[in-house]
C-alpha cells in the first residue's frame, strides 16, 4: 500500500555481556574494579541468604508476609553499584538486594517484615525512599524527585524499580510521560521477572518487549539480560550518564526471573511449572557471577565457603538483634507517631485515651 512509513526516533536493542557460564564479552563489559565486584557479590549472597532465612522465619510465624528477591539479586545490585550514594533510590517492594547495597540494615528489614513500623525508618541523610507497595505507584513521585534534583542543579539522578506487572498500571504511563516531557534525570528499571503473582509476562501485555513501551514517550530504552550483573551495570551506567548530562530519562527492561514465591502468602504451585523454575536455575545471577569470579581467580571455593559462614552469622545476629528489639519495642502508642509534624488536638486526645487505657492494663 502506498502509505507513507513514519520514521520513529528510537528502537529497542538487547544487551548481554556475560553468558550462562560466566564468560564475559570484554568489549561490552563495564569497568568495575575487583573490590567493588566482590562487594557486589557479597551483597547478592547476603540478600539470598537473608531471604532464605526469612522464608524460614515466616513459616515459623516469627515474621509476616514478604516478597523475596531471590533470583533478582544481580539485577538489583548491578544497578545500584553503577550509581553514586547521592543518587536517589526509589524501590517498589521486592528490592531487598538493592536496599542492602545501599546500606539498609538487615535488622531493620526483619523488624519491618515482623510488622514493626520502626523497621521502615529511613536515616536522615539517606537518599533512599521507603518500600512502596501499591504497584507502580512509586513511579510518579520518583519523577517528582528527579525534577527536584534537576531544579536544585545537583548532579544527582534517580533510579526507580518496578516489575513487569507494573507496566500495566496507569501510574507507569503517566510517570513515563512526565519524565520525558520534563526531561527529568531518572532511570526506569523494569525488572521483568516473568510473573506478576500468577500472571505470566506474556499475558500482561501483547507487546513483544516491555522496553518498547518507552517508544510511546519518545524515550530511549534498552532490553538487557537482568541476571547478568555486567549488563545491568553497563546499562544503568549508560542511562545514568545520559540523565546526568541533562539528556533525560531512559527505560531499561531487565529480563530476570522470580525464582521463589511472589510473597510468602503465595503458592506458585497453583500456576507455574517447576520445570520453568529449574530452567532458570541455570541463569542464577549469583552462580553466574561466581563462575566469572572463580575463572578470573578473584574468588575461590574456599573463600565462598568462608563468606557463606560469615553471612550466616550476620543474618543470625541480625535476627537476634531484631528479636531483641521487638521485645523492647513495647510501647504501642507509637501508632500515633509521624502522622503529622505535630499531632493535632483531636489526635492528641485519642492518643491520651489510648495511653490511659494502656496504663490501666486495658
Amino acid at each position, binding site marked *: 500500500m502506498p502509505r507513507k512509513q513514519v520514521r520513529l526516533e528510537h528502537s529497542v536493542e538487547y544487551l548481554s555481556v556475560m553468558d550462562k557460564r560466566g564468560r564475559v564479552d570484554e568489549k561490552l563489559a563495564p569497568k568495575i574494579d575487583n573490590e567493588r565486584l566482590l562487594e557486589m557479590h557479597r551483597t547478592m549472597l547476603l540478600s539470598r541468604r537473608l531471604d532464605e532465612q526469612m522464608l524460614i522465619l515466616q513459616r515459623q510465624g516469627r515474621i*509476616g508476609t514478604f516478597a523475596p528477591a531471590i533470583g533478582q539479586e544481580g539485577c538489583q545490585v548491578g544497578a545500584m553499584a553503577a550509581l553514586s550514594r547521592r543518587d536517589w533510590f526509589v524501590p517498589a517492594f521486592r528490592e531487598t538486594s538493592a536496599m542492602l547495597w545501599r546500606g539498609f540494615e538487615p535488622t531493620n528489614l526483619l523488624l519491618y517484615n515482623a510488622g514493626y513500623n520502626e523497621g521502615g525508618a529511613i536515616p536522615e541523610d539517606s537518599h533512599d525512599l521507603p518500600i512502596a*507497595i501499591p504497584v507502580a505507584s512509586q513511579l510518579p513521585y520518583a519523577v517528582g524527585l528527579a525534577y527536584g534534583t534537576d531544579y536544585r542543579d545537583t548532579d544527582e539522578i534517580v533510579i526507580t524499580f518496578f516489575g513487569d506487572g507494573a507496566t*500495566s498500571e496507569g501510574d507507569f504511563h503517566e510517570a513515563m510521560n512526565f519524565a520525558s516531557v520534563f526531561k527529568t534525570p531518572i532511570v526506569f528499571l523494569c525488572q521483568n521477572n516473568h510473573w*506478576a*503473582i500468577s500472571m505470566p509476562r506474556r499475558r*500482561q501485555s501483547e507487546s513483544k518487549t516491555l522496553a518498547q513501551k518507552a517508544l510511546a514517550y519518545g524515550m530511549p530504552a534498552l532490553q538487557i539480560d537482568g541476571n547478568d550483573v555486567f549488563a545491568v551495570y553497563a546499562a544503568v551506567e549508560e542511562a545514568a550518564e545520559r540523565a546526568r548530562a541533562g539528556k533525560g530519562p531512559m527505560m531499561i527492561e531487565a529480563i530476570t526471573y522470580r525464582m521463589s514465591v511472589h510473597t510468602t502468602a503465595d503458592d506458585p504451585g497453583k500456576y507455574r511449572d517447576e520445570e520453568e523454575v529449574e530452567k532458570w536455575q541455570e541463569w542464577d545471577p549469583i552462580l553466574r557471577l561466581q563462575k566469572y569470579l572463580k575463572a578470573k581467580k578473584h574468588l575461590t571455593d574456599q573463600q565462598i565457603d568462608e563468606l557463606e559462614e560469615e553471612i550466616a552469622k550476620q543474618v543470625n545476629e541480625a535476627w537476634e538483634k531484631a528479636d531483641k528489639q521487638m521485645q523492647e519495642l513495647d510501647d504501642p502508642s507509637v501508632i500515633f507517631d509521624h502522622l503529622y509534624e505535630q499531632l493535632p488536638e483531636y489526635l492528641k486526645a485519642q492518643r491520651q485515651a*489510648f495511653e490511659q487505657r494502656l496504663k490501666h492494663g486495658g
Partner: protein
Amino acid sequence: MANLNMADALNLALMQEMEKDGDVIVFGEDVGVDGGVFRITDGLLDRFGERRVIDTPVAETAIAGFAIGMAAYGLKPVGEMQFTGFSYQGFHQMESHAARLRWRSRGRYPISMVLRMPYGAGVHALEHHSESREVYYAHTPGLKMVIPSTPRNARALLVSAIRDPDPVIFFEPKAIYRAFREEVPEEEETLPIGQSRTARQGSDLTMISYGAMLHRTLEAAERLADEDGAEAEVIDLLSLSPLDHERFTQSARNTGRVVIVHEAHRSYGPAGEIMARLIEESFYYLEAPIRRVTGFDTIVPMFAREQDYLPDVERILEATRAAMND
C-alpha cells in the same frame, strides 16, 4: 446444608450464580488460575472457562472500567479488587461512571455490576492491606455498598448484589473469611440490599456494628449480659448504602442508649452518619450521649500493632458501660 466458612460461602454464591446466569462474568488480578489471593474464586476458571473467568493485567482503573462497560452492554460483571487499598486506583471510574451512567443516560444504561474487595485489619498483612474506608464508597451517590458479617449472609448478599440492577461495592471482611463456619443452605438465598438485621436482642442498650467488628461487638454484648446483667440489642447493618436506619433508630427509641462500633477511622467515619440519623429520628429518646468505638485517626499501623488500632472487646465494653451508667 453445608457448614461453610465465609470464603467458601462466597465461592458458593459465585459458582451458583455463574451456573444459573451465563451473563455473570468474573475477573480481576489472579482470580483465574490462582483462584484469587484469598481463594474466593477458586475453581471458577475450571468450571466456566477463560471467557467468563478472566485474569487481568495489574490495572485497577481498567478493571473497574471493564466492569462498567460490560454492565452497559448488559452483562453482569463481578470484578475483584485484590484489596480495598488498591481500589483507589480505579476509584474515579466508579465515581464518574459506575455511579452515574444510568443517571447520565436517563435510564438507558443501568450499571448492574459488583466490585468485590476484601477490607479490614487483623490478618497480619502488609501496608495498604488493612484499611476500612467504606466511607469513600458509601458517600458516593449512585453506588450501593454492603458488608456481610457471616458465611450465610455473605453468600446471600453476594447473590443479591449480583442480581441488583445498580452498582454494588461489596466489602468482604477478610479477617473473618475463615474465622468460623455456619450452616449455609444449598438452595439459593438472597438478602435484600439496604436491610439491616438484629443480631442479638436486648432492651437495655443498642449496639450498632457490621463486618468483622460485629463479632467483637457481640462478644462485648455477651460479656455485658454475663458481668453486668444488661441486655444489649445488637444491630448488624449489612448495608452502609442505602443505610437502613429504621431498625437502629427504632431500637434506640426503646433503649435510649447507643454504642456504635467500627474499625474505620473515627473522623468522618460511618459512625457520624449513624449518629446523625439517630439524632434526626430518635433524639428525644436518647438518655445518654451516643458512643462510638472506632479505629483511630491514624494510618493503620503495620501488623505488630494492628490490634492496638482495632477496637477490642475491652474498649467496646468500656464505652458500653459508660453509656449504661450515664
